[in-house]
């Protein structure tokens, strides 16, 4: 019996194998979700785009230089001086050939290996913690204060960051060593967009001249205006959009599917915002909220996040309109309420009990001047000075939430130092308990970096005096 049925079993097996081969080949070539081929889980920085292998691997899949280019496409802006104290250019001189044998610092993947979750720390580093030893083994000679320290402690919270060391280098520590916990005139950076609009060459001045618009100016097609909810035009009229000439068609007329013919759409996406807010959208797509859009994937949803999110928000799609309510574009809502609609971690839940929120409330109630309050966005999407091209620097809201996080010392200069002293800021960010309770209280840990810089500075001043 079994011998009689054998050919059939083999035929079924063969058909099954063929079907599977066709399925996997199709998936590999045409499928959007290729995660079935993934050799290991991705880190928190890349898991959102894990289904798009070519986002990191490129077309060749394994060419090291192509993969490096892919890293630079998303991370390159932050990997240059002054934001990076170890840019690639530091290592490309042939005199570093011997050093590169230890760690090839000209490639990101030498220290950030993906698909190896057991090796990566929370910043995605997969090198042994004492990697600094390869180039700085004689540091104790230059900095006597560092004598006896182990190399696996260099990157401990508050001491050194391999990339962004802007708030932690010795001269900066010395310059800010005597600052109080709270500065005399704490205030966040002011808005600038309206005042520089004329200078922004990419702004569509010709189509939408900067002038205040009223109800009479509404330029939506007649068939849309008939159906338009009055609340929409009312909301729009209260915005900076109406005050600066951004009419209905500015956002709602979009070229669909790559055509050059704009058509009316009821649901404009981030590409509409990009017309005037290109820097903001570019940054948004570099961060965790928008990185899927950068790879032409469907928008991120809170359900995809690894941080705790509110279940009722799981299905929300993250684009510009998720945080900036369409037509209303209330910046206060976008700065707090929109965040708390989704985020459900300890730090977020503790915000409304914090002194930062108290200041924010007082500012909103008019009890304190503008710039006194601290919202979620004040720290996580701060206003920063950005070189928008080689020739122009502007103040923009940094919509890449990761630009000031992981490691959190990246937040010190663009955020904390607007209101707090350097020592207080370093200690606070190193205190995990304080981070979790949203900085409700004073830091209970102390990072020694300023003390050590002070010691070295005293030694230096004494030497100059003796000379």
């Amino acid at each position, binding site marked *: 019996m079994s011998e009689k049925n054998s050919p059939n079993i083999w035929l079924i097996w063969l058909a099954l194998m063929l079907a599977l081969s066709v399925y996997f080949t199709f998936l590999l070539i045409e499928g959007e979700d290729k995660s079935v081929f993934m050799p290991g889980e991705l880190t928190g920085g890349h898991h959102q785009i894990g289904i798009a292998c070519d986002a990191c691997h490129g077309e060749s899949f394994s060419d090291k230089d192509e993969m490096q280019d892919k890293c630079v496409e998303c991370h390159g802006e932050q990997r240059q001086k002054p934001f990076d104290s170890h840019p690639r250019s530091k290592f490309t001189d042939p005199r570093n050939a*011997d050093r590169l044998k230890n760690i090839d610092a000209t490639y990101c993947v030498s220290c950030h290996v993906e698909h190896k979750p057991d090796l990566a720390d929370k910043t995605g580093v997969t090198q042994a913690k004492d990697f600094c030893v390869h180039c700085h083994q004689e540091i104790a000679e230059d900095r006597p204060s560092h004598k006896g320290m182990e190399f696996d402690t260099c990157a401990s919270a508050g001491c050194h960051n391999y990339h962004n060391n802007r708030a932690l280098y010795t001269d900066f520590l010395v310059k800010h060593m005597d600052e109080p916990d709270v500065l005399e005139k704490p205030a966040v950076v002011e808005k600038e967009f309206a005042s520089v609009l004329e200078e922004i060459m990419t702004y569509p001045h010709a189509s939408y001249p900067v002038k205040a618009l009223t109800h009479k100016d509404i330029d939506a097609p007649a068939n849309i205006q008939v159906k338009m909810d009055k609340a929409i035009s009312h909301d729009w009229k209260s915005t900076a959009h109406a005050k600066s000439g951004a009419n209905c068609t500015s956002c709602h007329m979009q070229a669909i599917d790559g055509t050059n013919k704009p058509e009316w759409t009821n649901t404009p996406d981030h590409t509409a915002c990009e017309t005037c807010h290109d820097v903001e959208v570019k940054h948004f797509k570099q961060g965790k909220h928008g990185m899927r859009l950068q790879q032409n994937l469907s928008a991120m949803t809170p359900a995809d996040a690894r941080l705790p999110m509110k279940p009722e928000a799981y299905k929300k799609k993250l684009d510009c309109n998720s945080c900036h309510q369409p037509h209303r574009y209330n910046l206060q809502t976008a700065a707090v309420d929109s965040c708390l609609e989704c985020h459900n971690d300890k730090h977020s839940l503790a915000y409304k009990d914090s002194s930062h929120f108290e200041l924010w409330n007082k500012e909103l109630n008019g009890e304190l001047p503008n710039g006194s309050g601290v919202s979620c966005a004040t720290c996580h999407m701060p206003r920063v000075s950005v070189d928008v091209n080689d020739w122009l620097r502007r103040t923009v809201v940094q919509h890449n939430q990761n630009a000031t996080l992981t490691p959190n010392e990246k937040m010190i200069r663009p955020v904390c130092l607007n209101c707090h002293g350097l020592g207080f800021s370093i200690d606070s960010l190193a205190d995990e308990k304080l981070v979790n309770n949203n900085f409700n209280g004073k830091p209970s840990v102390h990072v020694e970096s300023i003390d050590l810089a002070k010691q070295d500075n005293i030694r230096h001043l004494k030497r100059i005096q003796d000379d």
Partner: protein
Amino acid sequence: MKLSKLIYSAGAVLTFSTLSTTVLAAGDTVPVKAMADALHLVMDSDRSVYTRKIVNRLVKKEKVIKASEHFEDDKALVLPAQMFRFGAELVQKRAKKLPDVNFTYSLQSLWPINKQNAPKTKAEKEGLKFVADNKGQNYYTEETLGGQKYFTAVYADTGVAPVCVSCHNKHKDTPKDDFKIGDVMGGVVIRIPVGM
């Protein structure tokens, strides 16, 4: 990389022809040593102009701005040494797109403020010592790094302005604080890949 790629046609680098006592014809080549000397002459002249006409004039004579190693934070001019290094980094980046152009250069010292600029290879160590001990002479050699052979030239970098000397002597990380004007304070190392 073939030697032929290391030498430029005279037509493409007219500047070099002025260095030679013989006028080169189109299609002639420039020896690798002459190429290194020519590169150094350009680098050294630009460096001197920046130090004298920009930094020293604005900082010391007209006293309108500072020069600082933390030029971004201090809103100041970049130091001459940084200007030189930024140029070297840009050259490396741009040369990647020019297959016939391949050289690197760096500013180093036996007494570096930043220890990463201390000589590392045997040629660098010997070269920097040679130019410091033999004023007015350059050092030329060949070395192999990472499997590639290089023609390596070392040129003295001399403290020409008071501001160079005083800044180095006072810097908190300097290993030498008694430089005088005219002292060799370091050297420019130029590398050109040769042979294969």
